[in-house]
């Protein structure tokens, strides 16, 4: 096969063309068409592997279309469309190019049939996403992104090394189901985990996402982590270990999200929490669970984008996303408020909203596989989601304390795309079977059973009640200007410090050594000079007698030798 | 130096005998102690005596420097030439065997010739060396001594 076609090429080609389109609107329009073209390119294709490329010793499969990759391709296309549309007003070519490349790389990774290709696009998403954040061009963003970038590259490196070891163990680089039975697969697993923001590896997310431009954040939220979910689903479905990781992932951000001041960080934590559900689904690994994961990923991309967009719209108007600075915007940005609430309801898995139809799948799969404690944890986590994402975000932005903002409604293009996303949320919530039909495994599942709905509603109401009480008694820990440090101090403070200290000591030792060596050499030279210099003993003109002394010494030694 | 009349007379008388003795030593070298070198030295001593008594300038007048160098060269070349002659006679260098009708006589001839060369060279060389020293103006006056 010499046919190297793959959908991501469309994005790359577009990225190459975009900078040269001078007219801003034309450019934006052109970009908007790209996701459609991208989707169209593979939508009608039959499942199978298309582009082979002989490289080194192996045959790369750079375009593999099957159920899993198809749906993720679709997800990413939608995400690309949403984020591009939301960025309609953006004129920065760098941001535009990098978002295209980013989306393209993510799609490329999804269709990668082998680990090498995966790695290439994996790193591609890292570089492109970093550029996207750098494009904000603030000193803070630069520093943050250096960390983010390093983290992403580290993930890529782990993947790379894992691939190498895996290749050496198995002789294959095919991207298929793997067992955690060797260093190589563990490294690959870890690499995925990094990107997926496993607990203790998650902080890059909270660190970087809020640092990007408002539009950039929307883009970021869609691809990187979902790509990791895809990779885990592809490679490590049914790995029991993942269930516990997922459970922990879904639980711990709840508390951080509750105390977090920056709304984008709140959303980032919530992202974490949502990913936890998916990871659990992957860990269970039954078709139902995997479908749940995929479905969740699908809907999550949309509602999380919706939430980020609403926050982004607020930032666009107010310039801040801090709980302590916001409140009472409902009067001025009603549409935004409305879409935000739709997003909140979705993420909280309110029945008739998209979150419900997806999360139920996972919860059911968890329950049916007998992981009762995990199920409990997920339920508690759901409560937490409602707490921070479902209520805190809309409440703190649009209600709560009125901080005296007098702003305009978000611009129309933003509202349009938010509306589009909100509509999707509702549509999916109402007609779940459409979504289910797209899932890789055929499922017979009906979310709207009384049992499901009632359980969910009870839970939601109790959560809402709790939030109300907490607010009422001023116990809810909000509105403090604070940056919460959790594990991220390790890389924010600890690792840079370690690096700084190591650098310092290495350079100091180095310098001391160099100076020591220099001084030694200098001193040795002095000694040599004293003896050999123009006036040194060895270079002086000696009276004739002294040479006879040497003769005598020589003869003396000879004499000694003769005696011996 | 000029007022030592007795010295000058004695020296004048002695000189021929010294030179004669030198010649004796030169030619008698085959049979007794002595030979070209000793003869040359004695010959030179004769000249030196002359110089001591009559002054170096007188000696230089008698035998100019060029003559001395020439004589040195003649002596050396006489020696070396003898060897070259034997080369031309088809023999190895300094092989005197064919200088006369039979090898033994040839040897005698050869020895005589080379001894003569040595004598001339040595006499001239020694005189030349002495002349070189003696004609050098003293750097220091007699009072400094």
């Amino acid at each position, binding site marked *: 096969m010499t046919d190297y076609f793959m959908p991501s090429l469309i994005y790359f080609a577009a990225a190459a063309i975009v900078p040269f389109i001078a007219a801003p609107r034309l450019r934006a329009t052109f970009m908007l068409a790209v996701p459609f073209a991208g989707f169209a390119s593979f939508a009608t294709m039959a499942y199978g592997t298309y582009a082979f490329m002989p490289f080194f010793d192996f045959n790369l499969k750079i375009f593999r279309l099957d159920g899993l990759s198809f749906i993720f391709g679709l997800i990413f296309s939608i995400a690309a469309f949403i984020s591009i549309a939301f960025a309609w007003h953006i004129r920065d070519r760098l941001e535009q190019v990098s978002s295209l490349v980013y989306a393209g790389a993510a799609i490329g990774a999804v269709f990668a049939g082998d680990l090498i290709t995966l790695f290439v696009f994996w790193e591609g998403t890292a570089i492109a996403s970093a550029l996207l954040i750098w494009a904000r061009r603030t000193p803070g963003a630069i520093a943050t992104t250096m960390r983010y970038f390093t983290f992403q590259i580290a993930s890529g490196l782990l993947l790379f090394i894992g691939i190498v070891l895996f290749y050496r163990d198995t002789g294959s680089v095919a991207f298929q189901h793997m067992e955690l039975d060797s260093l190589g697969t563990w490294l690959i697993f870890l690499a995925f985990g990094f990107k997926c923001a496993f607990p203790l590896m998650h902080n890059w997310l909270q660190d970087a996402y809020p640092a990007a431009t408002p539009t950039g954040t929307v883009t970021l939220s869609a691809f990187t982590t979902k790509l990791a979910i895809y990779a885990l689903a592809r490679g490590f479905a049914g790995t029991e270990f993942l269930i516990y990781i997922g459970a922990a992932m879904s639980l711990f951000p709840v508390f951080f999200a509750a105390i977090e001041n920056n709304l984008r960080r709140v959303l980032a934590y919530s992202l974490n929490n949502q990913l936890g559900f998916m990871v659990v689904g992957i860990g269970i690994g039954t078709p139902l669970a995997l479908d749940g994961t995929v479905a969740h990923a699908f809907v999550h991309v949309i509602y999380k984008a919706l939430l980020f967009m609403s926050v982004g719209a607020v930032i666009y108007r107010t310039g801040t996303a801090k709980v302590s600075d916001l409140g009472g915007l409902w009067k001025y940005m009603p549409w935004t408020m409305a879409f935000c609430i739709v997003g909140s309801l979705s993420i909280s898995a309110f029945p008739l909203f998209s979150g419900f139809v997806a999360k139920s799948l996972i919860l059911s799969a968890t329950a049916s596989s007998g992981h009762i404690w995990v199920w409990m944890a997920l339920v508690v986590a759901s409560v937490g989601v409602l707490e921070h994402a479902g209520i805190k975000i809309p409440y703190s932005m649009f209600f709560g304390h009125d901080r005296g903002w007098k702003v305009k409604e978000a611009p129309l293009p933003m509202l349009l795309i938010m509306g589009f996303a909100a509509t999707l949320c509702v549509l999916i919530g109402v007609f779940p079977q459409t979504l289910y039909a797209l899932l890789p495994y055929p499922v017979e599942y009906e979310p709207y059973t009384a049992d499901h709905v009632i359980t969910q509603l009870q839970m939601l109401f109790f959560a809402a009640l709790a939030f109300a009480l907490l607010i009422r008694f001023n116990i809810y820990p909000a509105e403090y200007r604070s940056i919460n440090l959790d594990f991220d101090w390790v890389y924010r403070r600890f690792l840079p410090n370690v690096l700084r200290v190591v650098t310092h000591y290495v350079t100091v030792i180095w310098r001391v050594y160099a100076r020591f060596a220099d001084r030694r050499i200098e001193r040795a030279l002095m000694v040599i000079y004293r003896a050999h210099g123009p006036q040194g003993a060895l270079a002086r003109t000696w009276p004739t*007698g002294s040479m*006879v*002394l040497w*003769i*005598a*010494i020589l*003869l*003396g030694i*000879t*004499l000694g030798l*003769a005696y011996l | 130096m000029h007022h030592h009349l007795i010295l000058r007379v004695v020296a004048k008388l002695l000189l021929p005998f010294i030179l004669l003795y030198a010649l004796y030593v030169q030619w008698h*070298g*085959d*049979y*007794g*102690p*002595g*030979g*070209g*070198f*000793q003869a040359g*030295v*004695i010959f030179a*001593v004769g000249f*030196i005596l002359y110089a001591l008594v009559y002054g170096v300038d007188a000696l230089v007048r008698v035998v100019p420097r060029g003559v001395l160098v020439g004589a*040195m*060269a003649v*002596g*050396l070349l006489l*020696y*070396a030439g003898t*060897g070259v002659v034997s080369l031309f006679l088809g023999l190895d260098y*300094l092989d*005197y065997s064919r200088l006369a009708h039979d090898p*033994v*006589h040839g*040897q*005698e001839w*050869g*020895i005589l010739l*080379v*001894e003569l060369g*040595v004598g001339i*060279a*040595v006499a*001239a*060389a*020694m005189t*030349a*060396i*002495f002349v*070189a*020293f003696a*004609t*050098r*103006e*003293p*750097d*220091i006056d007699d009072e400094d*001594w």
Partner: protein
Amino acid sequence: MGIILVDLMLFGFLVLTALAIMRLTNLFAVTMLAGLFSLLAAGLFVTMDAVDVAFTEAAVGAGISTVLMLSALALTARNEKPFVIVSRRMAVPLICCLVTGAALIYGTLDMPAFGDPDAPVHTHVGGEYITRVIPDTGVPNIVTAVLASYRGYDTLGETTVIFVAAIAVLLLIGFPRSATRRRDEDGSE
């Protein structure tokens, strides 16, 4: 036995002369003593049957070299700088000489005895000259025969040496020094 006594006496005088040369600072006296040393050496050579050598040594050592030395002294200095006895300056050369002497004496220990007719010196080439000199050359003075014929080439070298010495001396001091001196002293002192 008598020879030994004469030998010893000569050696004694030689040593004394040498020591005197060492001690004296008047260079004229030193020159004279050096001549005396040569004369004594010539005497020693005679006792050891080396008449030709003795003759030469007398002529050269006591004659020419004294004359040259004196002429040189006339151009340089009469006295040696008073010799300061500093033990270190004395000791080092002394040790040098002792070591060198010791080495030499060590070397003599395996030598054939003095005058031993069976020494290799006499049995090999030396003896051969004595037997064949008359038939080969007809010259009774073996020394002359060896000098001019058997080892005539050495003597050519010897003549060349003296020639070279004369050339060298002429090169160094053979010409009036006025010109030379001016140049020597240019820019110095």
